[in-house]
């Protein structure tokens, strides 16, 4: 299923194989993998595998991952998605990353708002949640700004770059979505 969500400066759309080049170009930045599950090192094969894997999962209804396509250039500058879609509990996990050179322009905020709206209105989800690796303050602030509620902190969940990181948990219920 093809999904297109129109924003002001970008559109969110299903990834195609040809996007692997730009996904690779931006995802290999250590600033991206620092607090995400984007692998490091990030060979080009990772981008192809990621896109293929997502098509399979999307067909099974397990996730929807969309590229953030800048209208001006047609380039994919980041990803946003709903993953771990649970049809029974109507829950899904929100995830995202944005190329570093586009940080600080409100792109990801808008992309998350569009995705959350799609999740609650079209997919009829009851809850959308997100995990932030502490101390990724930028991501935590973003979620709070969009209206997510802080639900707790799981200690020492992820071993990354030689240390243990806690998970900050955020959630939004359908009735909290304005």
């Amino acid at each position, binding site marked *: 299923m093809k999904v297109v969500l129109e924003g002001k400066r970008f559109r969110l759309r299903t990834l195609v194989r040809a996007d692997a080049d730009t996904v690779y170009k931006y995802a290999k930045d250590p600033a991206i993998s620092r607090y995400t599950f984007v692998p490091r090192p990030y060979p080009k094969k990772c981008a192809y595998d990621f896109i293929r894997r997502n098509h399979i999962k999307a067909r099974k209804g397990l996730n929807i991952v969309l590229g953030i396509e800048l209208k001006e250039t047609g380039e994919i500058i980041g990803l946003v998605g709903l993953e771990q879609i649970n049809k029974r509990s109507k829950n899904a996990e929100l995830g995202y990353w944005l190329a570093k050179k586009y940080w600080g322009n409100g792109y990801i905020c808008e992309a998350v708002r569009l995705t959350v709206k799609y999740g609650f209105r079209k997919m009829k989800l009851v809850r959308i949640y997100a995990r932030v690796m502490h101390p990724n303050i930028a991501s935590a602030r973003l979620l709070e700004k969009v209206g997510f509620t802080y639900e707790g*902190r799981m200690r020492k969940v992820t071993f990354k770059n030689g240390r243990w990181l806690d998970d900050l948990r955020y959630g939004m219920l359908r009735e909290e979505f304005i």
Partner: protein
Amino acid sequence: MDLRLEGKQIVLRPVHRSDAGSICANAKDREIGRFTHVPHPYQIKNAYDFIKGVRRWERQKQVVLLGIENRETGEIVGIINLFHIDRKNRRAEVGYWLGKKHWGRGIMSEALHLMLDYAFREMKLVRVSAKVFHPNTASAMLLEKAGFKLEARLRKIAFHHRHWYDDLCYGILREEFRRGGV
């Protein structure tokens, strides 16, 4: 060699086909399925399928599942397991249930202590987590008594018996575990 964890009132050991009768007798109470994924009604076939399933999960190395054997009778009165075992991040989740007529005697506390000791000492995990459907107060109290800390409350995350439940998320770190005893 089969894993065997010895306690005062109980022994934790793998379950076998011959345990199906006692597993079924203890699991079939409606109270067991209320806040767990144990099916209800529970029949002997469920117990056989469960025992068969355990072998498969264990082969995939993601689960350590043990029966809680009453030392006096040899009967399996409940189940405790470590699952979602994540070797890279050295953590796992613990889950359990105990037959209702055995509640209130510290059996589950003892089983949990034995399992945590194994998880931290033998498996060298750094974190064990547990999820409790709110309002399963008995289970929450058991975890707190064992030294777990309430870390998060995830709202409406589980749909169970036609209701949405919050998950109370508990965690215990290796340095918080008291080896001394229950």
